[in-house]
């Protein structure tokens, strides 16, 4: 009995600081400045459909690139000798421990018109290319910042796959491509799901990467929401409505790819 009571402070804490704020967000999404009910905030979001679509589009591209890069990496990593495996894991994790603002800043300086990459291109007689403030730069920033989040869950699931399964598949007449399709991918499903979640969610909702690498022209949902809360045009009503849509969107996406099945969410805590 006493044991069950041990979680009471936690329940209270989470109720006050997680549930109540989300409740307030929902409340604000449907009220006007003088406190009466309205659907206006929600309807106004229609104006920003293109920004929502752009955010989703860029995040999908970034997630796809991360997956294509991380899948072979995770597999190769899982087949290495233990010592080497630990060493490589450490090397992949290390950049993640640097603040992501600094990592994004690094690309900002590289992609600039007078940056190092253009400097080299000039020596080769190409360019200068305008790379900063483009959608490509934003996608690059997403891939760079979140790639390890895709490699790690893929690796940790693949490391548990019994290698003799691939031999069995080969014995039964699978060529390598077919055994990737029929054995490796189905067995790495939980890793694929957490990887996609861990790259897609922060990519869709970012406002730093788009601001630092995308300039003013590449506003994403995150920027839109941030503008409502920080700065002179404080407007928590529209802001809450946008955040609510973002949150529901994420829940739908996660439900669609199956993040909520079984214990698969546990993959998020590596």
């Amino acid at each position, binding site marked *: 009995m006493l044991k069950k009571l*041990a979680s009471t402070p936690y329940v209270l804490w*989470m109720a006050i600081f997680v549930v109540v704020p989300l409740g*307030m*967000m929902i409340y604000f999404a449907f009220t006007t400045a003088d406190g009466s009910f309205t659907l206006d905030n929600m309807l106004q979001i229609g104006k920003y459909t293109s920004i929502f679509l752009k955010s989703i589009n860029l995040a999908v591209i970034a997630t796809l690139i991360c997956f294509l890069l991380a899948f072979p990496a995770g597999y190769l990593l899982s087949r290495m000798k233990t010592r080497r495996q630990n060493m490589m894991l450490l090397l*992949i994790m290390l950049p993640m421990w*640097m603040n992501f603002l600094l990592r994004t800043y690094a690309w900002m*300086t590289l992609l600039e018109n007078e940056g190092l990459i253009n400097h080299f291109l000039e020596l080769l007689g190409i360019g200068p290319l305008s790379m900063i403030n483009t959608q490509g730069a934003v996608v690059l920033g997403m891939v*760079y910042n979140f790639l390890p989040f895709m490699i790690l869950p893929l690796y940790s699931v693949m490391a548990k796959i019994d290698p003799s399964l691939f031999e069995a598949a080969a014995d039964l007449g699978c060529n390598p491509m077919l055994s990737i399709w029929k054995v490796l991918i189905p067995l790495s499903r939980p890793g694929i799901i957490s990887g996609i979640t861990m790259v897609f969610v922060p990519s869709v909702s970012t406002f730093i990467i788009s601001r630092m690498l995308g300039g003013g022209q590449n506003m994403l949902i995150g920027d839109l929401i941030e503008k409502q809360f920080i700065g002179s045009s404080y407007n928590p009503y529209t802001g*809450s409505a946008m955040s609510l849509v973002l949150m529901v969107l994420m829940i739908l996406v996660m439900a669609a790819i199956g993040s909520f099945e079984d214990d698969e*969410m546990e993959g998020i805590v590596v």
Partner: protein
Amino acid sequence: MKKWLARGYFALILLFLYAPILVLIVFSFNESKSRSNFTHFTTKWYTELFHNELIITSCWNTIQVAILASVLATILGVFAALGINAMRKRSKALLMNLTYMPVINPEIVTGISMMLLFVYICGVLNTFLGEGTVELGLWSVLIAHITFCVPYVVLNVLPKLRQMDANVYEAAMDLGCTPLQSFWKVVIPDIMPGIVSGFLMSFTYSLDDFVITYFTNGSSFQTLPITIYSMTRKKVNPQINALSAILFVVVLLFLVLSNVIQSRAEKQREES
């Protein structure tokens, strides 16, 4: 052949991950502010950095918040895990959903929703105490950090509790321990690895957090990531490069050290 292909692939991935950081570090020693021409070697940006009061204060703020938030989150989380572990299936499922909420929600949503609550609290208090007496600051950042850290403690401690043999606790009592004693001497040591990893995760997430702090810090309280952000807004500032270099070296040393300690402990275990 296959081996070399694999190695080449990893070399490319690592090049992609490290090249930008290395360029940043190299240019922290560049005399001119240019980020493509290396003119002369200098350490002046480091000297400037160490005399930058804003950086020093925000470093101190960050460490303060990280220590307080991770310690408090760990205490709250360990008790939460004990309680959840003893619960029946339905209330357990409900609490787990509550626990996952801040983990899966986009950070910006967590940030703005807490901002709404804190701004509201400030508003209410200010009508009683007079305008401007209460504003967002250390307290709101601390509450926010504890809130996004606790779930990680719970999620790290719960599996350890599940693996624990419940009979051990009772055996300790049979041997004359009071419930409190057997808790301290049996349960806590048993789940210690989970507590430590939950604590470390909380500590690093708190140190590193930008988005949630950005919405809950108000105008006067700055942590290091917030200061870094305002520095990057001003475009050319080689002090950022110097700061990156220092942080990179600190992280590197920390990871190498923890790896050495870990492998030593493993060796000792094998020998005994």
